[in-house]
Structures are given as structure tokens and as C-alpha cells.
């Protein structure tokens, strides 16, 4: 009885977010804005050597100091946001879309189609992601499109398994049985009966998977195998400037903080989502 009362208010008035969730959302929107308008926001051309000193200190002229060649760090981080967010977003979009479509199809169609696909995806899942990344990068190189496809390929099996599990659950519900014996087509079952009931946890999973992809991309770039010069995402910025770590230069700390602020915010936002959305996405 009390359950009915709460769901009712949740439906009517939308969800209330905790303060932590609000802050996290603000950080994410900030980075999204930076990435979208990066070329208009940079104080200096990111590729140009502007400081006479390398690893220059933080100053009023160079807010985050300069890098190993004397380029402005702030500009490079602003441009880096484009690559980190852009590549990751493209990757996660492809991964989630293909994972969810295949997952729902496997759940509804069942039979050998489901068995074969699931077995293959499970095998792919048993390759640690970073290792997978190394192998694929070794094979196809690290141009931006290759990176996006690699990341998408690595995270599709996880998305598949998640969506399939949800869809299998929904598929056993009586309302799907009712639709089926009404004579509805498979396409209708998937689009009208199953998808609307898994979309919220799938969106939460989208966020989690986005973090995974940001982490993997940064890791690959850090190893010098991700985004290649002259372009640089945040991971590559750390890679370029890692020698300056021993004197704690902003050139290595600032991009690290940028990554951390983005990924922690996404995770905190998901953790502070209303229970109703989150529960099925653990």
C-alpha cells in the first residue's frame, strides 16, 4: 500500500536528486560545454609553443602552466576534452546500441541464436579490457575511427549481457505473453513491450559504461597507444608530461584531475539516481 503511494508521487512529480547528484550533474554539463565549444574557449592555439620555458609554472599568463614543449596547458586541456569526451561518447553510443539491440533480440528470439551469441559474448568478456585494447590497437592502429570502433567492440559484450538479462526478465512477464498470444510480431514485442521497461536501467548502464570507456581510452593514451600526436586527449597529456611528475608540475596533475572529475561525477550521479532507476542496474 505504501509502495503505491510512493510510486505515484514519483511518477507525478519526477525525481528528486540529492545535492551530490546535482553537483555531479553540474560538473558533467560543464565538461560537455567545454568539449562542445573548445575552439572558442582556448586562450592560445593548443599546438603552438607560447612559453619560453618548458614545464612553466602556473602564472597569470598561463593559468595551468606550460607543457614539455612550452605549450599552454589550459588550451591543451580544453581541446583534450573534445577527444576524451568525443571518442568515449561515440564509443559508448555504438557499444550500447549494438549491445541492447542484440541483447533484446537474443532474449526474444531465444533458441540457438541466443545460445551462440551468448557463448561468444561471454568468451569476449573473459578477455580483460585493457589487454583486449592492446591487442586490437596492435592490429588496427590508433587512428580516431579505429579507436572508437575498438572501444565500442570491447564494451559491446558487457552491454549485451546486461540488456539481455533485463530483457529475459521482462520477456517472462505475463504482459509479454498476453501480447504474444494476441498475435503481435517480434518487432512489436521488442519495441513496445520490452524496450520501454528496460530503458532506464540501460541508461544508467550507459553512464557506467561511459566511465569504463573513458578509463580505457585514457589508459591506452597514457601508454602512448591511444590518441596520437599532434592530437591529444587527457590521457595523452599525462603521457607527454609524465617526466614532470617528480616536481609535481601542473602539466601532469591538471589532466589527471580533469579525468578524475569527469569519471567520479558520472559515477556519483548514477549512484545518487533515485533507487527506482538504479536498482535494476547494479
Amino acid at each position: 500500500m505504501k509502495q503505491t503511494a510512493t510510486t505515484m508521487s514519483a511518477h507525478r512529480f519526477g525525481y528528486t536528486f540529492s545535492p551530490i547528484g546535482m553537483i555531479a550533474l553540474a560538473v558533467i554539463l560543464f565538461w560537455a560545454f567545454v568539449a562542445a565549444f573548445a575552439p572558442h574557449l582556448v586562450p592560445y592555439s593548443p599546438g603552438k609553443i607560447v612559453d619560453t620555458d618548458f614545464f612553466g609554472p602556473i602564472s597569470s599568463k598561463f593559468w595551468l602552466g606550460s607543457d614539455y614543449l612550452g605549450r599552454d596547458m589550459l588550451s591543451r586541456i580544453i581541446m583534450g576534452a573534445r577527444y576524451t569526451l568525443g571518442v568515449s561518447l561515440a564509443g559508448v553510443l555504438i557499444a550500447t546500441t549494438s549491445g541492447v539491440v542484440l541483447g533484446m533480440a537474443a532474449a526474444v528470439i531465444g533458441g540457438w541464436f541466443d545460445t551462440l551469441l551468448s557463448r561468444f559474448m561471454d568468451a569476449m568478456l573473459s578477455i580483460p579490457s585493457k589487454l583486449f585494447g592492446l591487442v586490437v590497437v596492435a592490429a588496427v592502429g590508433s587512428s580516431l575511427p579505429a579507436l572508437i570502433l575498438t572501444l565500442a567492440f570491447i564494451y559491446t559484450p558487457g552491454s549485451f549481457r546486461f540488456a539481455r538479462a533485463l530483457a529475459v526478465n521482462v520477456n517472462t512477464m505475463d504482459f509479454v505473453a498476453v501480447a504474444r498470444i494476441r498475435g503481435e510480431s517480434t518487432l512489436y514485442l521488442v519495441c513496445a513491450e520490452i524496450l520501454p521497461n528496460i530503458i532506464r536501467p540501460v541508461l544508467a548502464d550507459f553512464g557506467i559504461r561511459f566511465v569504463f570507456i573513458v578509463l580505457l581510452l585514457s589508459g591506452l593514451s597514457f601508454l602512448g597507444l591511444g590518441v596520437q600526436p599532434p592530437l591529444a586527449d587527457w590521457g595523452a597529456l599525462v603521457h607527454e608530461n609524465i617526466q614532470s611528475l617528480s616536481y609535481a608540475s601542473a602539466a601532469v596533475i591538471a589532466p589527471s584531475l580533469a579525468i578524475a572529475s569527469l569519471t567520479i561525477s558520472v559515477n556519483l550521479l548514477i549512484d545518487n539516481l533515485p533507487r527506482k532507476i538504479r536498482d535494476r542496474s547494479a
Partner: protein
Amino acid sequence: MTNLVEIRNLHVEATTDAGRRIEIIKGVDLDIAKGEIVALIGESGSGKTTIALSLMGYARRGCEITKGSLLVDGKDMARLSEKQRQQVRGTEVAYVPQSAAAAFNPSATIIDQVFEVTRIHKLMPPAQARLRAIELFRALSLPDAENIGNRYPHQVSGGQLQRLAAAMALIGDPKLMIFDEPTTALDVTTQIDVLKAFKSVMQQGGIAGVYVSHDLAVVAQIADRIVVLKDGEVQETGTTQDILQAPKHPYTRELLAAFEPRHFEFSGRKEAAATPLLRIEDVTSGYGQIQADGLPLIRAVRSVSFELEKGRNLGIIGESGCGKSTLARTISGMLPASAGRVLFDGQEMPPASKNRTRDQLQHMQIVFQSADTALNPAKPIEDILGRPLTFYHGMSAQDRSKRVDELLDMVHLPRNLRYRHPAELSGGQKQRVNFARALAAEPKLIICDEITSALDTVVATAIIELLKELQRELDLSYIFISHDLSVVEAICDEIVVMYHGEKVEQLTREGIKAPKHPYSKLLFSSVPKLDPAWLDNLVLEPELVRQYVG
């Protein structure tokens, strides 16, 4: 002090998911004398379990006892420290849960858990505790008392587990036992033994008890006094006799009315139609790999045949696992029959629904037990009701909207409900929508699979009345599947009794009083009656029980 339990002005609050606090127990007073059994009765959400648990100084996660005193043997459970409460639990107050199957730890043997209480409270040495446990197993008439405790919980039956849970509660020699719907999950034939065992140990030990239940007939057998609860408040308190014979509160009367034998008019204008509406011949179906003989490994339905004439109703009754729901799924084509034929209006239908024509599908609709899972939670009611209208009748948006209003009128729901989602409806409302969706197809036959069993008695009665009313207006036939004889009796012209996948007997309404097959006899006589002396006077042939109750 004369009373063992004195609850005064108890208030319990719960925190909802959204973080709001609502009061679920609103000032309850309750007395229990030594050795007296008091029943708490009410529908789901009435707060009966919350009150019972508060007697152990315990509130479930998210709940909190906010006001009032809970004296048990002079100790206020609401004020004790957690440590002091631990000492009372299991020794002075003991608990028998609703589902013993879930309340036993799956990774320990039964006997270890039964005498765990003696170990926790250091009541007696283990060897003695073991003997005492076996003694209790015997007192509760459990088979193989010496060895049953050495098994793991998943290795014994539900009825036995429920009695083992009682043994677990009794071993600490409590002054007060709390029974939390202990027989609700059991079949009626199993329930008898469990109830008898409970009653005899309580009487012998002179133990006081709180018996939480929604079933007035069960409570009548075991309780000295009955407390009727609704929405966290006491509606009426009285001796069992008084409540049953002279109920004062309207809600109590409603509860009792649900038990009254309903006046029944034959639904059937008995036309001597040449072809029956539905005819099934030697249908066999089941699950698992197909064997060499073309039949599945596990045959849930074996060679069942019956006929249903137009405008009449057929009830299918049996206990859990008898194959009645599988039969419904087979008729509807969700689970294709492995053998036998299904004829509708004289026309043979393909076994699988996907091979049936849209026309065939439209004329036979099925309504499922749980409206929670039968309605798509992501869609508003108007879409749920609108889809069959578009699908079968190709209605335009305007016609559809008008028809949705009519359908809501038919099932007596307010029209503005169409904009809501299923989660915003009560259980009874959801079941009405569930039914309206079947009506939207304009079928000739509706298969109702346990549609009232998830509902409270009063709500269920109203649904049955609705079904009858619609039948008069719309020229429908029903197949009514249930484990509850009184429900089937209230609406059906004929009744098929199933046991172990087979049809054991088909009875007319008049024949219900005198079933011939021994299993039907056992089943019908096991249904509790409001008469408090019913259980004591009930004599079942032990031979019969051994044969059919496992």
C-alpha cells in the same frame, strides 16, 4: 498484572523510498492473557505483521516504533536495549514465519537451526537439545522424527518445513508464540495437518499466541479472540464466537460476507447447441526434451478431455503442481499441446498460438493471476486497453478513445483512470483493467487463471460479482482456474478436479456436495469452514491422506 501482553497506543512509522515518513500503525491497543491465542486479521497493508513483529521489539528495515508501550511479561519491548531484546527473543517470545522455506538457512542442517536457540541462550547442553527437538518433531507429527533434522531445508516438503519452524520456535519454551500467516503458502490438504499440529502443541503447553492471518476460516479454528485491523487501526475486537456471529463493524461484516454461500443463478441459457464452444480431446503437454514417443519429459497435463458449452462456465480446480495452469497455457497455445486436439466452435485450432489466425486468437482471451506482471508498467491504461482495439478491430483514434471509456465503465472503473500507469492503481483496480483488456478483444471465451488469488477476500468477491454481471450482458463463457473451491463454486456450472496432471473427476454444481473420487472428497473436505469446531470434528481417512498429501 494479569495479562501477558499489553500494547498501549502503539505507533509505527515507515520511511518510503522517496524519503517521506508515513504512519503505518496508528495507535493500537491490544491485550493477550496467559495461554490465550489472539488472531490479528486484515488485508495486506493493514499492519498485522508489523504489530506482531513489534512484540519482539523488532521493526523491519525502514520502520520504527515511534510511540507507545509494548509490555510483554512486564518488560517494555519498546524501551529495552538491543542486548536485553536479544535475551527475550527466542526464549520468551518466539516467531513462526510465513515462509519457512525462506526462513531456514539453506547452508545448515535443520536440527542445527532448530536447537540454535538453546545454544544462543545457553538453555541446555546440545545432546539434551537434540532429544528435545526430536520430541517436538514427534509432537508436531512429523514423519521420521529421529532423522528428519539431519536433512537440509531444501530436502523436505513445505508443510513439513512449516512444522519444523514451529519446533524451532517451541524449543525455547516461549510464553508467547507469534504465527505470521504460517499456512498461507500451503495447499489446503497440507494445511490441515499443520493447523492440527499447531493447535495441539499450543493447547498442551498453555502457550499464548498471536496468529496473523487474512483467512477468517483458518483463524476461527485456532484463536480465542479476533482483532480486526484495517489501515493500521483496530476496527473491532471480540471473542471468536462474537466476531463470527455478531460482527459490529462494517468491515468485519464485509469480511464475513465473502464467506456466505452465494445465491447462484445458472449462467447458461441451456441451448442445446450442436457444437460445444470449446472441446479438448486427450490433451497432453509439458516441459523438457521431447522423448521418443513424441511427448515431453515432464508431462504436466496428461490426456485431459472436456467440453464447454456456449454461455456456460467451467471451473478447473486442484492444488499447486496439479497442471491446471499448464492446461490453461496449452488451450491458449502459449505452450503447444504435444498430443490431443483443441476445438473451438467445432473448428480444430493449431496447437501453437503463433500458427493460429487472428480470428481464432481474438475469440479466446486469457487473463492472468497477477495483474502486477500482466500489465505493462511502462504504458498508461488507455494504451494497454487501446492496443487490442487497434490490433483486432483496426479502430481509429477517436473510436478507440470512446471504446476505452466504455470498457472502463464496464469494469466499474472511473474514466479518468485511463491516464494513469498500472503502478498507480490498487490490486483490485489492476485486475479490473486486466479483465477489461480481454473484453476489448470481444471474445467468446475468457480463460481466467487464478485471477482472484492475489487479492484480498473482499476485493476478490467484488471481482467475481463483476464477472457474473458481464457474462449476463455480453454472452461470454469462462474457464475459471483456481485452487480455491469457494471461488469456483461461486461462478461455475461445472467443475473439473485435477490431480497430478490428470482429470480425476468432473462434477456438476449439484455434484459438489457428493464427489465420488477419493481425491475430490479429500480436497473438498479440507477447505476450512467458518465454524470454530470444524477442525476438531474433521476426520480424514489416514489412508487417503497418505495417498494424496505428500
